[in-house]
């Protein structure tokens, strides 16, 4: 993607050359959001981006592993603290 300021049709059409040159680099992403063909290439959905696919699946697997591990840790910590508190009554669980 080229650097520099992107002109959104209409809104910044009246900006002077000085303002164009004086804009900070890199362009602020949200104020210059555009899907213009000058800055975005054509997607090729026919060929999978295998790196992206691999990263997505491995991140998902890591997230699930982290979730299950954290849940088991939470359960163990809760049981441990319950023991430490010395639950005395026998009416409830």
């Amino acid at each position, binding site marked *: 993607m080229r650097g520099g300021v992107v002109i959104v049709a209409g809104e910044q059409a009246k900006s002077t050359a000085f303002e164009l040159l004086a804009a900070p680099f890199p362009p602020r992403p949200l104020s210059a959001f555009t899907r213009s063909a000058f800055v975005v290439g054509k997607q090729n959905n026919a060929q999978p981006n295998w790196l992206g696919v691999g990263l997505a699946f491995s991140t*998902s697997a890591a997230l699930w592993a982290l*979730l299950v591990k954290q849940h088991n840790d939470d359960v163990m910590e809760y049981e441990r603290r319950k023991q430490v508190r010395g639950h005395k009554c026998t009416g409830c669980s």
Partner: protein
Amino acid sequence: MAFLPDESRALPPPPLLNKGSVWLGFVGWMSALMDNAFNQRPIFRAGIHRQVLLASLGYFVGYQLVKRAEYVHAKADRELFEYIRHHPLDFQSPTEKKRIGQLLEDFYPIR
């Protein structure tokens, strides 16, 4: 302020299958499907890796949020019961509780 203070670990953790996780996982999946729709791809069959990733992310975030919500509710309950304990005079019932039999008229069957 910590998202999950240490004392929150003394609470029973939410089950792995819980409403917040399921809902946010569903939201993540929907956003992947919407991304497919906006980019004119087949909605369900495209970007399975994206659907799985966003659903898993939503599920994980949902679990953390449910833990935080349960902590906030438990803290409020603790403060409420402490207040009640410290102000017993404000929370006494004036007399004994009336039984329903005393409120109703006597029953005389008409045969």
